[in-house]
């Protein structure tokens, strides 16, 4: 578990706000309504700024407005799938450096290899992790 103060430190270094404290901004791309709500609620409770998108178009709209510190991305989405979203984000120089954690209920080796090859930083099978573990993973990635 990563210490809370590290995150704060990172946030401070990365983007100081006029108030002197800027929340870490997380973009969640998830099509399941219930899961999306749970994720947003948990992450918000944990002190993150969270935006969510149901599908690619909404996600890229948010990305165009504001660059997230990390993206949690599902794979099976209506229309453009998660793999394509990762590919596009990594292809665009402005967004290429954003760490992306795949949060999917797919989990076969091919899916995992494909996502990692496209540039995802980690791959978590939703059913195998609790929200606390997901938060810990986010903190650990951002803490690097």
């Amino acid at each position: 578990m990563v210490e809370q103060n590290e995150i704060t430190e990172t946030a401070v270094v990365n983007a100081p706000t006029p108030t002197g404290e800027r929340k870490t901004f997380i973009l969640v791309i998830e099509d399941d309504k219930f899961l999306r709500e749970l994720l947003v609620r948990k992450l918000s409770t944990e002190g993150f700024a969270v935006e969510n998108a149901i599908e690619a178009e909404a996600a890229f709209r948010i990305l165009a407005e504001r660059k997230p510190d990390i993206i949690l991305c599902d794979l099976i989405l209506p229309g453009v799938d998660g793999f394509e979203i990762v590919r596009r984000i990594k292809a665009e120089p402005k967004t290429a450096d954003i760490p992306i954690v795949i949060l999917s209920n797919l989990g076969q080796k091919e899916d995992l290899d494909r996502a990692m090859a496209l540039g995802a930083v980690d791959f978590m099978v939703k059913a195998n992790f609790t929200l606390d573990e997901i938060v810990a993973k986010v903190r650990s990635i951002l803490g690097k």
Partner: protein
Amino acid sequence: MSLGTKINLVLILVATIILTAGFWVIVSIEGVAIKQQVKNDSETVAYMFRNDIEHMFRQAYNQQEALQSAVSNLSKVDGVKYINVVTADGVYAAATDSSLIGVKASEETIAQIDKIKAGEKTFDIKKDIGTTYVIKRFIPIYLDEAKGATSLINIVEIEVIAISSRQADIFEIQKLLQVISVTIEQNAKSITVARVGNLRAIQRITDDVTKFGFYHDFIIHDDKLKIIANTGNEPTIFDNDKDVYKQLRSKVLSGKSKEELVRRIHNDHDVVMQVFPIQYMIAGKLERVGLLEIHVLISAYQDKINALTFRMIGIGVILTAILVIVLGVILRREVVEPITRYSKIAQKVADGDLGQTIEGLSNDEIGQFGKVFNSMVSNIRELDQLKSDFITVAAHQLRTPLSGIKWALKMIMDGDLGAVNNDQKDMLKRGYETSEKMAQLVNDLLNISRIESGKYGFKFEKNDFAKLLKTLITNTELASQERNIKVILDNRAGDIQPFSFDADKLLIALQNIVDNAIKYTLPGGRVTVSVENQGDYLQVKVSDTGVGVPKEDLPKLFSKFFRASNVVQLQTDGSGLGLFLVKSIIVHHGGQVWVDSIEGKGTTFTVRVPMIAELIPKEEIVAEPVLVAPEAKS
């Protein structure tokens, strides 16, 4: 026996039978032709010479006739009582009384002949019978005067009678005798000269004909079946011949048979004996005066037939070889090679590589088979994809609601949504654990589906086994504390050097066994994990003091969906997939897993994994539907 060998054997057999039959017909037809040819040739030659010989016989006969005619004419002269010509053997060759011809001379005459043979020249026997005067004169005729008695051919016996015993009449008959003797001597000599010449000619013929190669013997008999001439000039060769052959000659000579043909052995030679008459017309009647006998060698045509047979066998062997090689090459290229190629591809498909397609299909039945095979593999590929897709979708669809339940329960449980009392918390916890088991079941199903399709994706690299053991024990802490079970690690292997294994998969396997041990051991019990070296293998024993496995269930323990009969009632959360997964993982490591158990006392699972990379199977094994435990070891 390979297909190619079988085809070649059939080809050789068929080619041999067809060619043997074909050549047998050719040899039979040709053999008959050759035989006929030899027969025709030998007969043609025989007929040709027979004509010559008949001509000579005829000539001799004519001269004989001329002598007799001379004798008859001279006999008519007044005073001539008779004129007889006797051969040196004492047989009448010509006589005034023509019935005497061929008859033996009287003893009195023989006595006179003997005198001549003894060296006497011409002599007279005079008889004065009163009024007349008779002179009987014996005149020797020599072929060669100088050689004397040895060349004696005839004796002429003449008896003349004078009209009176007057000196003038006697002188007259003396003159007559002189004329007769000269005439007869001339005739007799010419007969002998011609006869000797003819004999020589015939003898030469009988010797010369052997040059044709097909005669073994060429024989001329006279009308007494005496040999006049034969090949090699052996006049007594048939003196002891079998009666059956003698009778054969007699039949032809007597006119009972036109000609005879018989196969016989003569002087150790297999021959065809043919007998033809020597005949000519005498006073409008065909007279048989001798025989021409030929012995044609069977070997003359048999050798040719044998040579032909050998030639045919040679050609047959060469043709068979060419036929077999050509057909063999064609069959190899058209049948055996495609089948071998297809078989290799089919093997790859059987081994799980569904990406295989048969290329270069020929436009025949085998090509058709290839097309069907390709379409079959394509179907399997689709089905496999379908199955894969189904599992993926099913897993995804199951996991999504599970994630929701899990996350929500955890949030409430953790008090994120406000305080919960202990009772509520306890109930939430059980709900949460149930959802966890469900998630595990989904994971197991996915793993097994991957193992069965050979896509589990093993990753072997050098790992630290001690680290794995530590994780294993740490993971059991929660459950063991909860159930009040003591988990003991007994490492007898000491410092384990890193070796090649798939850390994630091996942990899953060992975790499954240890979790099972904890699950089926009653509170207060003990689970011991002992590790030791066994040669090239590392052995891990997990012993518990649990409920044990009924003996009849042991062989089925590692089967998919199998649960022991004594725990089906006891617990509800076993999927029956765990040990199947364990077995698959251990087998993929080139290891073994087995179980010893006494019901009510406890169970010991033993896992052995190789510590040297060479013992790990090269390719991922497609798991069999049912895996049976190996025989229990002590």
